[in-house]
């Protein structure tokens, strides 16, 4: 079987041409080199070798061992596999191809995790400080240039430190995670919510002044979260361009207002 550009029209038959498969693999689009790519590889593998089903198991430092199954409606039974490898039914895939598939899938997963981790806080899965600083700079530039309004909201979870000291980090981490979910549910599409410190969160609310910020905090207080206690938090805000169009100054103003409110609260 020759390596032409008409792969889709070709139907492989035993003995399967592994070089042809590897050529097809090479031609898979790498625009979205992540979990979706893993399933594309499994699909290609299944098509080429006429597989009923195939599972690839790969390990990742942060996720642990992960199984990916072509038939995504059947995640259970063969998910008990906890050794890295490619397992197919029927088992007709040559070892060299299995090794390549496993390596490629491992790389795709690792890149996805790295890409995601570069912009997200691992605990709460909202944006991290790096992403937030960049978003705030961009927002400030746009506000200065076009006069677009936005409000920077800084939020502190009250009592986090005391709770962490009392009950340990795993319980207090749940508090932060829960607050992160609440933030994600409360912001509008296009806004940015981030965890910017231990118990500090930042939000960029576009086209928002007092009324919109108030609506946002109302939504936040009304949440979260089934089964969890209400989370007490304090916010400080600064609005661009009214207060400033400099991101550092906006941050300073919001932080000062936050500190002022916190010190006014009964301890």
């Amino acid at each position: 079987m020759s390596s032409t550009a008409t792969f889709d029209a070709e139907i492989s038959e035993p003995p399967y041409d592994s070089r042809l498969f590897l050529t097809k693999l090479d031609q898979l689009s790498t625009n979205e080199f992540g979990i979706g790519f893993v399933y594309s590889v499994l699909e290609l593998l299944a098509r080429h070798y006429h597989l009923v089903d195939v599972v690839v198991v790969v390990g990742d430092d942060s996720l642990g061992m992960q199984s990916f199954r072509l038939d995504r409606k059947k995640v259970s039974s063969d998910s008990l596999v906890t050794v890295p490898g490619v397992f197919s039914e029927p088992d007709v895939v040559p070892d060299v191809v299995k090794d390549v598939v496993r390596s490629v899938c491992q790389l795709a997963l690792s890149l996805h995790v790295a890409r995601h981790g570069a912009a997200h806080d691992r605990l709460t899965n909202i944006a991290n400080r790096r992403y937030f600083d960049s978003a705030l700079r961009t927002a400030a530039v746009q506000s200065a240039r076009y006069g677009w309004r936005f409000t920077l909201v800084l939020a502190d979870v009250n009592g986090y430190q005391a709770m962490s000291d009392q009950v340990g980090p795993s319980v207090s981490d749940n508090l932060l995670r829960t607050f992160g979910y609440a933030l994600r549910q409360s912001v509008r599409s296009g806004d940015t919510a981030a965890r910017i410190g231990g118990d500090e969160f930042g939000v960029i609310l576009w086209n928002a002044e007092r009324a919109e910020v108030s609506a946002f905090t109302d939504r936040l207080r009304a949440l979260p979260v089934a089964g969890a206690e209400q989370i007490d938090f304090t916010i400080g805000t600064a609005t661009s361009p009214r207060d400033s169009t400099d991101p550092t100054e906006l941050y300073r103003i919001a932080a000062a207002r936050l500190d002022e409110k916190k010190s006014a609260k009964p301890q």
Partner: protein
Amino acid sequence: MISSSEEDFELELRSLPGVLNVGISHAENGIVDAVTLFVRDQDPDAVRDVAMHVASLYYPDVTVTVEDANRAPSVHGRDGPRVALTWTGFNEKEGVSEVHLSFLGQLGTGMSGSGPLIGGAEATVAALRDLGYEIPCYLMAVNNVHTSTGWPVIVTFRSLADGSDRIGIAQADGELESAAKATLDALNRYLSVQTHLEP
């Protein structure tokens, strides 16, 4: 928010503690309508609660099911074929520990230049590799401890994937055999899984 793709949704679910696999079903219109998580060594209800929060952020109407790997019926069975330790020996002249294993009539041989204690574990791993197994762990420690009934050997492996420890303990005739059996004890879960899958 900065990401809302189905891929990121799946990644976030896979980031939850204990999640081994994620199954996703789509409705006819292509929207995700059901998610199944396969979890191990975690409280399924707690995972479900968190997963439902996550899912509701992406797909408000999605249903979330959690299957517990610890309760899943084993597809392997305790009476299935097992790796057996057939022979151990220490060549004092050359200082080499040697372990023979068998599985379904196939023999795996492993050797190590270490003494009987550490060498027993290292040679067992080598023999397993000789049988075609991949061992996703590295050897952390081999110790023997004095008890009222003898000197059992404890072998500790650390997972390359998640850093968790696998510990095995055994007491047999001599350090080498004890170390070999403790190694098989530590890796037994992985072996039993793979033996089922290997043709």
